[in-house]
């Protein structure tokens, strides 16, 4: 078997068949949808936020095993974090958790789609709740530079 097949270890296959935190939160405080124009993967994230804390998070959508596994890991990491902590989550936090540091560029986008959606959701929430909106541009930039 090749190194490509190595990527697909037990944990990824498991998560892809049995994703965790999969589903919707009906009374979410924020929701965000995005898709990967190249491959068609598509993810929604819903969150409940209490004061500054992410009390619940769920995702749903369509994606490959890598996308599903990363979304599972990401939502697991995020749950219970403060907004600032969640904003600080980096690519490598997800990739290293699943041993995906060496994915090629086009698959990296599968792996990080849910992180992009999470960040966009965070910025949307923060933006909506900003007292003055002079930070919105900065937030947008932070989101845009994710990939």
């Amino acid at each position: 078997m090749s190194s490509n097949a190595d990527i697909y270890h037990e944990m990824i296959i498991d998560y892809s068949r049995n994703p965790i935190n999969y589903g919707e939160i009906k009374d979410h405080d924020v929701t965000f949808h995005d898709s990967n124009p190249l491959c068609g993967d598509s993810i929604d994230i819903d969150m409940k936020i209490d004061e500054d804390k992410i009390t619940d998070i769920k995702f749903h959508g369509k994606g490959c095993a890598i996308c599903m596994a990363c979304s599972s890991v990401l939502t697991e990491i995020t749950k219970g974090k403060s907004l600032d902590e969640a904003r600080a989550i980096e690519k490598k936090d997800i990739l290293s958790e699943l041993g995906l540091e060496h994915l090629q560029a086009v698959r990296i986008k599968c792996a990080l789609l849910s992180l992009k959606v999470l960040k966009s959701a965070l910025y949307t929430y923060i933006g909506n709740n900003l007292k003055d909106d002079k930070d919105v541009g900065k937030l947008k930039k932070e989101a845009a530079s994710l990939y």
Partner: protein
Amino acid sequence: MQSTKSLFENLKKDFPILKRTVRDNKPLVYLDNASTTQKPNQVIDAITDYYQNHNANIHRAVYALAEESTKAYEATRDKIAEFLNIKDRQEIIFVRGTTEAINLVAYSWGRQHIGKGDIIVTTEYEHHSNIVPWQLLTQEKQARLEYIRVDDNGELVLDDLREYLAGGKVRLVAFSLMSNVLGTITNAAQIIKECKAAGVLTLVDGAQAVPHMSVDIDELGCDFFAFSGHKMLGPTGVGVLWVKRSVLETMSPFQGGGDMIREVHKYESTWNDLPYKFEAGTPNIADVVGLGAAVDYLAKIGMDNVREHEVELTRYAIEKLSKVKGLHIYGTQDISKRGGVISFNFADVHPHDVAQIVDGEGIAVRSGHHCAQVLMERLDVAATSRASFYIYNTKEDIDVLIDALNTVAKVFKL
């Protein structure tokens, strides 16, 4: 004469890239020909020769190089005319590819002839390039876009066309001659006949057909025909739009600039003769020359032989793939109605994961929506895996794919 079989066995040597290995030293098995094809030495050499010996801007200058480059550029127009049985070379416009060809029609014909309430009909199995330009146009003009549905066999429901035509509002029917996902060969003769009877123009997207089967534009009788060079052994960056002269003469310019004008004054201009009116700016000269070499190459093999070779591969592939447990093939099983494009899904494994694992075995297949999201919605899938064949593929390539699919099954514990 060489037998057809030995003909195809011998031509792999013309394609340098096929000697490559990828990933962990696996020999390359290239099965993404519906996306783009590889190039034979004959095409690469034509481009090199152009730059090493003849390069100059065309049409205007007096000097020797310009004479040579103009001749080489215009020779491709003649080759295309002969290859596709086009009677009038002035109807042939060089563009970047099928996408630009269709957009040119939307801008230069559509904006002139489509009005409020008019209908453009396309199909559920079109490539985005035969959908999005019509969305943009119909939105601008408050016109409507309608779709001929695809049945469970992967064929068009022609009754939908009849219903739309009966309404009397249809101005254009735009469809591909071969689906890039299902491989279905469209019953173009029937569609064009019915459109003609209704006085409705037809646009044929030939991107998947021209490389793979014999096409006779004169006999087809459509009004617009588009295709891409890079899917038929030619270079990237060049394609063709053909438009029937009587329609072409009603079209306004697309892009303004050099070469497309007759006289430019400060506040108005007049246009050059056909087809130059639609070829603004320095064209992609070298690649037009390269496309000519690709046409020569295909003409020498003979398009009926190409088709026969692919029918054989497709039959073999469908037979083998059908035996893989959990693998579902989309579209018709009737080989006479389809080209060498096979879309499939494999149990619950996502196509990206299939593609990634078979890539590890050196195999290039495409996964995703194949620029056909409307069809994906119709098939109710997010994506498919797709293997597509060309002249240099062999049954051994398919065997390698089958082996790799067994690896997928193992990894995913199917």
